[in-house]
Structure formats: structure tokens, C-alpha cells
């Protein structure tokens, strides 16, 4: 991977899952800057540079939000709703990464304009593949909105 690393915010309350995602990203050599928060409140604080995250230089605005749904304090759907209704944050791509396969969660997430909905596989290989593909898709293939576009000379696809 080349160019300026992308900033990812991972909102996940289960520390084991956090480690799994992190390990998955590392193994696929996505040398990105990943920030982890463990509840919805922290996630919102991070995005709005509030509370513990007022230092905008230290805590940059992310290019992608990986959001679990069942979060303490403020749950994932509420975080999603606030992000998508904020004029400043609405262009931020939000990928739901959760264990829930409930239809209500999926439709609610899309209603609230989630950009993608991913279910964590129990099988390790598939989990690993998911993280790899997720990285490729969102960090390489996907064209982010201009405002947040990283300063990059060439898109990934032109490198071949």
C-alpha cells in the first residue's frame, strides 16, 4: 500500500473483536492509522473532537467508520443516525461490522444511510477474508468524497 495512510475509526465494545480486526488488518498489510473506541459515546466524541478527543491533530477525522451495533451507552444505530444527520459528518463512509444478522438491524441501518453492512463470520478464514476484502474495497477501490480525499498521486487501480 502506498500514499498517505487512511484513518479508520473502529467502534467496538468487545476487546477480543477489536484485536481480531486489528490483527486481520495487520496481516493484510494495511498500514493504516486505526483508532479504537469501545462505546458509542466515545465514538461521537472522537468524530466531533469532544471530550478526550479535542486534539484534532492527534485524533484526525477518519476516512472510514467501522461501527459495531451493540455498543454501551450510545448504541451503534444512534451513532449512525447522528453521523448521517450531521452536515459535517454525513459524507463519512460508515460500515456496520456486527454479529447481528437480525433483519430489523439490517433494514434500520440502511434506513439510517449506512454505506455497508457486514456480519462478522465465526469461521476464522472467512473473518480474515472479510477484513482483507474490506480493506481493499474501502481503502483501495473506493473513491472517497473529495473533501476527505487523501493526498494521493494515483488511484490504486492505475498502479498495475
Amino acid at each position, binding site marked *: 500500500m502506498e500514499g498517505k495512510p487512511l484513518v479508520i475509526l473502529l467502534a467496538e465494545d468487545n476487546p477480543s473483536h477489536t484485536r481480531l480486526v486489528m490483527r486481520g488488518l495487520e496481516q493484510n498489510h494495511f498500514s493504516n492509522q486505526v483508532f479504537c473506541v469501545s462505546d458509542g459515546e466515545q465514538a461521537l466524541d472522537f468524530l466531533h473532537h469532544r471530550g478526550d478527543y479535542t486534539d484534532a491533530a492527534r485524533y484526525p477525522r477518519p476516512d472510514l467508520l467501522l461501527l459495531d451495533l451493540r455498543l*454501551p451507552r450510545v448504541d451503534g444505530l444512534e451513532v449512525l443516525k447522528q453521523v448521517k444527520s450531521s452536515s459535517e459528518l454525513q459524507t463519512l463512509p460508515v460500515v456496520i461490522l456486527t454479529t447481528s444478522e*437480525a433483519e*430489523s438491524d439490517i433494514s434500520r441501518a440502511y434506513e439510517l444511510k449506512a454505506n455497508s453492512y457486514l456480519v462478522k463470520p465465526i469461521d*476464522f478464514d472467512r*473473518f480474515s477474508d472479510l477484513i482483507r476484502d474490506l480493506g481493499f474495497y474501502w481503502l483501495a477501490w473506493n473513491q472517497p468524497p473529495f473533501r476527505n480525499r487523501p493526498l494521493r498521486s494515483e488511484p490504486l487501480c492505475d498502479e498495475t
Partner: protein
Amino acid sequence: MVGTDVSQVVVDPAAKTPRRVEQLLASGQDLATLNTNFRGLQQLAGYAHMPSIESLVVVHVPAKLVEANIRNTAIPWAIGLALIAGLLIPLSVGLLHHSYVQAHQSSTIATAKLSDSEERFRGLCTHVPAGIVMCDADGGCTYANDYCLDLMGIAIDDVFGWSWVERLHPEDRDRVPGEWRAAVKDCDVFISEFRFVRPNGDVKWVFARATALFDSDGNVSGHVGSFIDVTLQKQAEITLRQNEERNRGFIENSSQGIYLCEFDEPMPIDLPEDEQIVALSTGCHFAFCNDVFARMYGFESGEEMLGMRAIELYQTHDNEANVEFLQSMIRNGYQVIDEISEEFDRHGQRVVFANNCLGIVEDGYLTRVWGTQLDVTDRVQAERAVQASEERFRTLVSSAPLCIHEIDLEGRLQSMNIAGLKMMGMDQENDVVGADYLGAVCEADRDRIAALFDEAREGTASEFEFTASQDAGARSFSSSFIPIVAPDGQVERLMGITEDITDRKLAETERENLITELGQKNAELERFTYTVSHDLKSPLVTIGGFLGMLERDLAEQNLDTVHEDIREIAGAADVMKQLLDQLLDLSRIGRVVNPAEDVPFGELVSSVLQIVSPASHVRVVVNPDLPTLRCDRIRMREVLQNLLSNAVKFTQSHSDPCIEVGVQKPQDGEAPVLFVRDNGIGIDPQYSERIFDLFEQLDSSMEGTGIGLTLCRRIVENHGGRIWVQSAGPGTGCTFFFTVGAC
């Protein structure tokens, strides 16, 4: 008439009069009276034998006139006779003078007497109560007395030249002149009955007699006539005839059967009763009956029944009933009024009659019985049908398990069936009759029911529910107003069916509560399955993920990370076990119920603290006056264990952790409120409800499954209590309160 033999004039079928006259003459009696019959007209006659002129004077006066006079003036009969006798003396002189002269060729003395008697005659004629008229040979009227003038309705001046023929009633104008002419021709006495029309149009019936007068040469010199007014008699006759016709019409056209039974031999009324019954059944026959009566027994006409005996009609009857009927007739003085009898006609058809009859008793003998009879078969059958239907209705109402009642238009109870009385706790219908219906309705419902009552009085039926007033037990009822309309179209009263629906209402409320509860349970279950699917999957993802990692790390000989992988896997398995245990606990609540017992909370708290075993630096304060409450000890222990271990867990970071278990002084009649207070991390008030939801954890860094508080709430609520938390916010500690209601 003059010269005629008396016996020719006095027509007496019994031939009594001539004999009587002969007896009179033989006895030498000069004056007498006797009843006689002259041409069918009852008359009173006076006879005077006048030997001096060798004549017999007879005066006839219609008997009715004399009787009328006597009755009117109440003069005894003897005086009446004397009056007539007095009248006879002068009359005899005048009347028979002429014949005397003729017969004996009288002397001059007689001439003088003639003038004198003529005067008397005229006076007599004026006052005699009969019309007397004379005419000359040409028929011109020469004399008419006052009676005559009154009767004809003419003045004396109009008399002369007056023609009586012109005054005849049109219907008599052909007949009477002919009779007159025949009489004149034969020198006979003219006798007739006919009508005069008075100038004012009144019609007068007269009985007239006339005879010719002869001059000395034996030629007819004129006529003398007399007549009396028989209008009243004629009218009476006509009335009688009309009455007869009318009665016949009545009898023939009557809807009543009418009969006359005559006894073969009149029955002595002092006969023993059983013999009278036999006589009434067999000893008399139908002498008359109308067709209606005959048809009642299946005959065509009344004539067919003539001669039949009552027993013949009774043949098919229940004899006892006949005997009873005749007995009551005899005991009631041979009279029956509106008595109902059930009989059979001759075709064996059952018929019902209303009877009226009256026996005629003469000189101690019952001679005949008049009776009328009305066929009431249809009416009686209809009445019986109505009775039967009423009986059915009554049975239905009285045995119905619902309260059925009637109320009048003033809203007062008129009647109530047995089930209704039972519902009201009353024994007697009189206890509720007259009670105000609306008075039993509670105030909140009264206006609504009163409006429905007003509508019902106008004819609109309604069904409704209401709660009874406190006095009436505050129970719930469903009731109705059903207007009962009289034949004239007016609502005359209201009927209603009332049911005590208190129990049903309670059941409804209970059902609604259950539905709400079930709804809550369902929602919880949904949340439960959802969270279970999520939260149970979480450790599986961890396990699966780190197993993969472990494989790779082993392959790469990364021993450091191998340990980490194993730790992760073991941790996830632990979490999973905890989750399953607690879910099992949760599912047991409500399903497994331990018997309630009196639990001293002081003891319970100490035993729980031993298990929770807070670190030595944690100050634990337990109120020594904790109450003893009746509850499920095992479950309540779980509540305390959860609350106390939470308190320990969330005070870990505090430098001087403190946990307090206490009780708030209970308000009057309220359950004591127990509490567990800590000075730990506290809770943002906005999460004070959410923390009790399943799998809710405010802090993911803390151990736990998020089931504990859900478990506590479930147990407390199952005990009928309540649990809640108070905290000023993060960092200020928090207090969990709970009550234990009835177990």
C-alpha cells in the same frame, strides 16, 4: 136503526146481551149497565127501561174511554156507572122520542115535550164524547157537534156545505164512499173505519156509524152519523205490529241463538233437584229456536230442532258437566247468566257457548224456558292460546338465569323475576317493586343512562353497561331498555334484561393486564432472542477468530501470541458459560417458584456478603434494623448478591470505597424500601432505565454479562415489588432501591 130489533144491533157472540136485556125486562129493573161487545169493540152499555114511553134506551160508550176516565180521575167503578146512568136518563128521552111519536101517534102534549127534548138532545150532543153529525137528504151537513169540529179541525161556519168525502185520506178515498153508497142503497147502517185528513195535515183514524133518517112519509130525509177517534188505538196497533216485526227480525238476524223450551207438563218447582234435572233434560222440548241456534248444533234450520229435547243434545256430552249446569240453573232461580258450557254439535265438533236463560214460573210451576246462546268457541280457543303463550312466557321469564324486569314510564320497577331478585339479594318481588331504576346507577353513569331512558320512552331500544351506585354495591351491570308498545301505539312500559358483569369485567381487566404483560414478555423475549443471538455469537466469533490465529501463530512459532490467543479463547468460553448460566437463571424466574417464607434481611445480607467478600479496605455498613419480609429466600438472595457484587465492582477504582445496606422508614401502609448504596462510578441519569434491560452494559471494560440487573428486576417484580436506581451522575455513586411486595 130505529125499529130494528135490539138483538140485531147488539152483536154479542156469547149472545149474552139479549139475554141480559130480557132478564132486565123480566125483572122490571129500570136501569142497568153491562159490558158488551159491539162489532168487535168492547163497549160499556147502559140500559134504561122507560115504561112511561114503552121504550128501552141504550147508550154505548167505548169501554176504553170510560176506563180511561175512571183511571184518570181515580173514581171508583160504581161512580162511573152512576155517571153513565145519569147520562142515560135525559138521553133516553131525546133519542127515542122520535120513534115513540112514530109508534104511538102522540098527542099535543107530546109536541110540547118534543121541543123541550130537542133542546136537551142538542145539549147532550154537544157534550157527548163522540162525534155526531147530521146531514140532509142531499148530503149537506146540517149539524156537527164540538167533538166533531175538533176532530176534523174545522170551524162551525165551515161545516155547512162541507163534504166529508173530500176529507178522506187518499188511501181510503176509493173504499169508503163505496161502502157508504152500498149502505144508503140498502138502507143499511154504515159502519166503517177510515182516516180523515185535518186541514193541518194530521191524520185521524175514526170508527164511524151512520144511518138514514126518514121523514113522516118514510122517505130518507137525511143521515145521522157518529164517530169516535180511534187514532190512538190504531197507532197502538201499528206499533204493536211493527214491534212484532222488529222482534221477529231481531230473533232471525241475531248472532245469538235464541230458543224456547216448553214443558210437556209444567214442572212443580218444589220437586227434588235430581227430578228437576231429569225433567229439564227430558220433560221439555224446543218449541222455538232460530236458525242461528240450530246451526250451533250442526242443524240447518230452527225448524229441524222443534220438538227435540235437551237430552238429545246432551247425548255426546260429559254428563257431569250437564248436571252441574242444570243444578246451577235451578239453584239460581231458573236463571243462567253468561255461563260458559262446553258441548259437542251433532257432528261431534267441540263447541263452546256462553249461555243465558230464564225459566218462566207460573203458579209454582216452571212452564217454559227462554234462552240465548252465543258461540264463543273461537274466542275461548284464542283466549286459551293466549293463556298458553302467556304461561310459556311466564315460565321462560321466571326460570331464565338472567334478571328480567319491567319498569314503568316513571322509571320505577314494576316486576322482577326470580333470577333478578336473587341477583339483588332479595327474597320478595315486593322488596324491589317501586324502586327507582336510575337511583341504582352510580352518579358518573346516571346522565348517560337517563338519556337512554328518555329515548326508550319514545320507543328506541338500547343496550348499555353501567356501574351501580355505592349503596347498590358498586357492581357492574349490562342492561337494556326494551319499549313495550300498547295497541294504541304508545309506549306503556319498558322491559329490560340485566346481567351482573362484575366478574366478567374483572376477568376482562385481568385479561387486558395479562395481554399487556404478555406483550411486555414478548417484547422482552424478542429483545432476548435478538441479544442472545448477538451476544452468544460474540464469544463464538472470538473463539473462531483466535483459533485461526492460534493455528497461524503455531505454524509461525510465534509463542508470545500463542498464549494471547489461548487466553482469548478461554476468556470467550468463560463469558459464554456465564451467559448461559445467567440466562438459565433468568428463565427459571417465574417458572420455578420457591415457597415464600419470613426472611430476616439482616441475616440474608450478612450471608451474601460472605460470598461477595469485598476487599478489606471496603467499608460495609449494614443497618441493624433491616426488616423481616415474606418472600422467596433463594431469589431474594440473588437480588442482593447482584446488587452487592455490582457495588463492589463499581467501587474498585475508588480510594475509599463504601457500601451501605439500609431501609427507608416506611410510609403508612406502604412496603419498606430497602437500598444498596455505593460511592462508586455512578450512573448518568439518562441510563437509569436502560441498565435494567437485558445485556445492557454501560462499561464494556467491566466484567459481566449485562444480565444481572435484568434478573434483579424480574425477581423483584415477581414479588410484586419495584426496583429503581438513583445517581447524581458519573463519579457520584449510586443507590439501588427496591421493595418487596406480596409474594
